[in-house]
């Protein structure tokens, strides 16, 4: 490389930092000047979530502290290990997915690649953005838990000093590994990607299923016998999270040492977190230097130039099944459905996570036996319902909320159609609600039948899931239109942005309230009584009616706000 070229590439790091700063600065200035109400609502909602998570954690830690439970430090250590392990997995996948979108399907990177920008510099620039996006929820949800721990145990001031240092170092490792996995997949995956991804998803499900079955067996043995050995066996199933080589364990070690005010014991795990994180980042940057342009070329030209798509029986079935809707709404529905099914990234994620929840539901039978008290069955059933609701909430946030934003600069096509803009919203609402109702009702019925629930419980669950599916769809579609971001083309970034987080928070609040009102009273009563006493029946019915009213509000209010925004939208 010539001296000039070498000098230029050295300056690129600084150049990209300045670009980021300018973009951020201009966006913030514009945002503060034009959308104060939106900003205040987002901050308030974020504070509410952080407060709720912090409050729940405070209660949990207080329980351990006040009751002087033996080995509380050990239990907290295990909880922290799981927390950081699950966050690592989440950051690995979300980092990998976001970096894929940023590097391979964004018009900005095509622009940068046509300039003398070095591949690893572009990667570094996009990696920082991807990491910030993927760890946004981690900070919002993780920090209140750790602050609650610090406050309950009156930890040393040192803890609060170490906290940001380890958190920052921690996000580097899974994010870098996710990026390396993304680069390798793009470069090494066979040309027949759909088939390869299906094989990968099936293998992944089989592995997770096997692990879940082993853990469920250990948990059942532990619950049955209640002796120390079986409990030890259950803990042994999670030993990998406590391994001295596990980054999640380094996090736990460093935070617990900091909480004790033991700076010497903090040094090693913090050094391990940072050195491994930086090494993984370096490895990712070097991989990008050699693989990024090659991968870009492969993604751009790996498939047929023009692929023929025809009508599909699924589209025709959807058209026939939705005869109760008017034709324009049905056509809009089928348009969204086509877009969805032709994007394997979207349906593969739904397939994997639905498969995981199904495995969990099937395995949940392991926790319940005839000789167990009734309250176990009621508790597991309620938990399964909550798991279904969480799954729907996550799907709505990830796939439905970004839908209006993704119309992006093509919005004029829809905007100029000879149909009212209200129909655009209703079309998306029916698309979201119908998919969610079908999947969630089937899985809930499977769960109830496996647990041999009473017919009344099944009816309550079916109605609750329908209300949740409709309400969550209304929230995601309505807020998606209200907070539409037509400039972003990456759905994962839209989903984890400020508006997406607000939608997630609203969805979580809605599902907690709905389940609490509609299904909670029935199950809680049966946890303590053999049957529902007559005096409680009006309360159960009242809860269901309140839930229905809440569902009605969750559909109509956001949809109305969304429609109002779309009606006045210029494009």
């Amino acid at each position, binding site marked *: 490389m010539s001296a000039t070229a070498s000098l230029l590439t050295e300056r690129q790091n600084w*150049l990209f930092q300045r670009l980021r700063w300018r*973009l951020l600065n*201009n966006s913030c200035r*514009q945002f503060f000047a034009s959308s104060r109400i939106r900003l205040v609502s987002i901050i308030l909602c974020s504070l509410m979530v952080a407060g709720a998570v912090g409050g729940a954690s405070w209660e949990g830690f207080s329980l351990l502290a006040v009751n002087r439970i033996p080995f509380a430090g050990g239990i907290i250590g295990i909880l922290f290990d799981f927390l950081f392990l699950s966050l690592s997995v989440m950051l690995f996948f979300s980092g990998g997915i976001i970096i894929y979108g940023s590097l391979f399907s964004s018009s*900005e990177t095509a622009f940068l690649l*046509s*300039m003398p920008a070095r591949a690893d510099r572009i990667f570094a620039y996009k990696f920082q953005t991807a990491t910030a996006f993927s760890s946004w929820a981690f900070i919002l949800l993780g920090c209140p838990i750790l602050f609650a721990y610090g406050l309950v145990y009156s930890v040393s001031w040192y803890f609060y000093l170490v906290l940001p240092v380890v958190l920052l170092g921690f996000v580097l490792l899974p994010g870098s590994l996710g990026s390396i996995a993304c680069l390798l997949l793009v470069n090494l995956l066979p040309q027949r990607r759909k088939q390869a991804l299906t094989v990968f998803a099936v293998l992944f499900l089989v592995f997770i299923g096997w692990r879940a079955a082993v853990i469920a067996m250990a948990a059942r043995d532990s619950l049955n016998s209640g002796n120390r050995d079986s409990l030890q066996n259950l803990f042994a199933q999670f030993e990998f999270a406590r391994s001295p080589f596990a980054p999640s364990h380094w996090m736990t070690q460093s935070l617990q040492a900091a909480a004790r005010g033991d700076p010497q014991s903090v040094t090693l795990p913090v050094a391990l977190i940072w050195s491994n994180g930086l090494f993984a980042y370096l490895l990712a940057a070097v991989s990008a230097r050699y693989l990024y342009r090659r991968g870009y070329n492969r993604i751009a030209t790996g498939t*047929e*130039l023009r692929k023929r798509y025809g009508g599909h029986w699924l589209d025709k079935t959807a058209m026939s099944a939705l005869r109760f809707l008017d034709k324009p709404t049905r056509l809009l529905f089928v348009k969204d459905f086509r877009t969805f099914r032709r994007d394997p990234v979207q349906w593969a994620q739904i397939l994997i996570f639905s498969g995981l929840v199904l495995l969990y539901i099937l395995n949940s039978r392991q926790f319940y036996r005839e000789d167990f008290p009734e309250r176990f069955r009621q508790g597991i059933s309620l938990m399964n319902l909550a798991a279904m609701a969480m799954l729907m909430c996550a799907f709505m946030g990830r796939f439905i909320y970004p839908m209006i934003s993704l119309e992006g600069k093509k919005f004029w096509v829809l905007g100029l159609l000879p149909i009212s803009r209200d129909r655009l919203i209703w079309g998306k609402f029916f698309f979201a609600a119908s998919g969610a109702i079908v999947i969630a009702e089937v899985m809930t019925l499977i769960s109830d039948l496996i647990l041999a629930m009473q017919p009344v419980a099944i009816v309550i669950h079916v109605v609750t899931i329908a209300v949740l599916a409709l309400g969550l769809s209304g929230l995601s579609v309505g807020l998606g239109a209200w907070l539409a971001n037509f400039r972003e083309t990456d759905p994962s970034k839209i989903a984890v942005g400020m508006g997406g987080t607000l939608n997630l928070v609203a969805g979580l609040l809605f599902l907690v309230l709905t389940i609490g009102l509609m299904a909670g009273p029935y199950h809680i009563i049966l946890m303590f009584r053999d049957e529902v006493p007559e005096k409680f029946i009006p309360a159960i019915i009242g809860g269901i009616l309140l839930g229905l009213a809440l569902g009605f509000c969750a559909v109509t209010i956001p949809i109305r706000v969304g429609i109002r925004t779309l009606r006045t939208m210029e494009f």
Partner: protein
Amino acid sequence: MIELSNVSKRYGTKVAVEDLNLQIQPGELFAFLGPNGAGKTTTIKMICGLLFPTSGTIRVGGLDMRTQGDQARLLISYLPDVPYLYEKLTGREFLQFIADMYGLDRATALQKMDEVIAQFELDDFVDDLTERYSHGMRQRTVFTSALLHNPKVLIVDEPTVGLDPASVRKLKNILLDQVRTGTTVFLSTHSLDIVQELATRIGIIHRGRLIGCGSLESLRTQASLDGSLEEVFLKLTDETVEDTQAVTQT
């Protein structure tokens, strides 16, 4: 300045460009014509190093695009048919970013920026965020940025879309000025009148193959037609279709 040797490019099993050989000299305005889907944009993307040829080599300024791409791109300015601008930067900030990317020192960058801003008459809007720009304003800003670092090779894909007649006239003059100063211009367009007026040499690509290359006169001779470029172009591309059909039938 630009040299393509036996370049082929496949998308899966489909051939987008087949055995393309081209040599374009410094100071030449080479017009690249072809029907939709003929392989023009693929060729351009390969010359910029965005895509790699399946076989063959591409050299720009004597540098291999595959192995010395970063250095070669310092010589190139590429204006795609759908230009990219950072929506949250002002036009001036965008120009500054480009100047920095190509290593212009501060004083030169500022002087050059003032020059091109005046030349393209961007003063009225250059300090607004680019998200507020009309299509024509975006085109002018991107064109300005492309000339900022005095490229040796200017690759332009459909530059006249969305420009008013005065801007098109200005664009033609600027392209000619660039050629006069020794810049190689590789122009891909469907505006045959511009090509007829400006091009030193014309290449016609159809279904991935270069079916004609040379001055307008030599293309006329090849087509056995003494007409306009439009007539020559249509005749040559029609003939290719007929030839292909004949080969398929036999």
